[in-house]
């Protein structure tokens, strides 16, 4: 199959984990790399299918997305919006400091 498929090593796994914002402890990275490689190796079989000239299928619904009038139809209930926040101040979500 195509050249651009790499075998994942622990370093790549760490990079993917960071992209996905999931903490994966270093001692689990090698094992996870094995698992992911097995899965990716298995999906390589898709390379056998001739897909020349085939349009990628993005949705099963043979419809164009509906449009609606550009009007406010919802909202005005900040209490409900922050109802489940771990840390809400007034009607804001609080997070650790981002800018020094």
């Amino acid at each position, binding site marked *: 199959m195509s050249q*651009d498929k790499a075998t*994942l090593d622990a370093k790549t796994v760490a990079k*993917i984990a960071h992209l996905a914002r999931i*903490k994966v402890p270093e001692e689990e990275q090698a094992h996870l790399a094995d698992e992911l490689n097995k899965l990716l190796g298995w999906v390589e079989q898709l390379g056998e299918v001739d897909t020349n000239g085939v349009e990628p299928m993005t949705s*099963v619904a043979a419809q164009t997305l509906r449009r609606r009038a550009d009007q406010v139809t919802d909202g005005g209930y900040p209490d409900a*919006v922050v109802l*489940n926040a771990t840390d809400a101040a007034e009607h804001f979500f609080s*997070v650790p400091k*981002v800018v020094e």
Partner: protein
Amino acid sequence: MTNLTHLSMSEALDGLKKKEFTAVELTEAYVKAVEAARPLNAFITETPEIALDQAKASDARYGAGTNGPMDGMPLGIKDLFCTKGVLTTAASHILDGFKPAYESSITANLFRDGAVMLGKLNLDEFAMGSANITSYYGPVLNPWTGKDPAAAERKLVPGGSSGGSAASVSGRFAIAATGTDTGGSIRQPASFTGIVGLKPTYGRCSRWGTIAFASSLDQAGPMTRTVRDAAIMLQSMAGFDPKDSTSVDMPVPDFQAALTGDIRGLRVGIPKEYRVEGMPAEIERVWQQGIEWLKAAGAVPVEISLPHTKYALATYYVVAPAECSSNLARYDGVRFGLRVEGKDLQEMYENTRGEGFGKEVRRRIMIGTYVLSAGYYDAYYLKAQKVRARIAEDFAKAYEQCDVILTPTAPSTAFAIGEKQDDPISMYLNDVFTVPASLAGLPGISVPAGLAADGLPLGLQILGRPFDEVTLLRVAGVMEQAAGAQPLPPFCR
């Protein structure tokens, strides 16, 4: 008095209309059954107070003659549907304490028609799994144990991801339940527990307020004890919803009227590619039996070919993780659910998601992130979308020669907790017969077809044309009739 929890939904509705019992009596019987079934771990949250309040209101409506089509029916709700003010977890640690401020369109439709909620049912975490073993709240047990005396000791899975739904309906502690199906999560557990499970056409039921796994595949549907009950419940669940951009704006037919029993001349496609290598002889036998049943009722079996079948699972395991990695990006510890602190915002995200997601969910998010990442998008994701188009095209061509398709629902009966866990791919193979239709967005139903030699239930799957649930239900009704009365699971005896 008859055992109220053993009535089908249509029988219970008749009983309520004839005032043979009240909605409160029916709900009380179910609340007791739910308590007695706790060892099966099917419910994450029980809501007996809500149920009894709803039942009282239902009795008032029966008194006033304003009762709805599902009035007083005690349902289990898969814990993937947001329920206003009631803990909604998706069976994940990351949604700890989440009580939605809104109601999903599906549950809102069911409540509009008078349904009663017994509680929120266990599932695979974020509906990712085929055995209900990835739940943060622990596995669900199948009410079926099989013939083998040792099997009674072996705890069997109910299938997944709608495992709690399947167990509660089969075990007679919910009259019916909502399920969701992304790659087989309604149909496969229905087969494993001897009930009816219907996945409607993509777009038939609103996805609004249902926690998303893979948005181009997810579809809600009924899990019931009879085909008629599936028709009744789908009637309430289905319909256009402007809040879901993929909900289809078309009339909903009368599903119960479909159950005429007349399938004379109907062409039933038998896909040759579904005779997979290593398939147990029992599955083949039940499939053959199904063909004979439909033939005896006047249908005409036609051999068809779905040449890209063998690529469906690999396609699914690119497309679904890709969509899940995007959908699950919202769980970041800021707006709801679990938060695990870190030294800065990035670390808080990573800690929260590292601790909040289970192993299978993490694996799928990682695969999805990888196949969508720069440099790999074309080779994996785009390629899978193109193969998906091929698979859908296979079905479109097949439906030029047939009206419905008959296949086994799953390649085995229920297995024990702990089996098929060595590597993810052996677990994924459970969905080999259900995934292709999911990719094509087609409706499918699993109907109980009796017991296999091991004493466990097996289902047969009927697939239909897009939005032709009517024909699907008609054929399912004939199959149910031919299969005859199904035994109760050992748990209920």
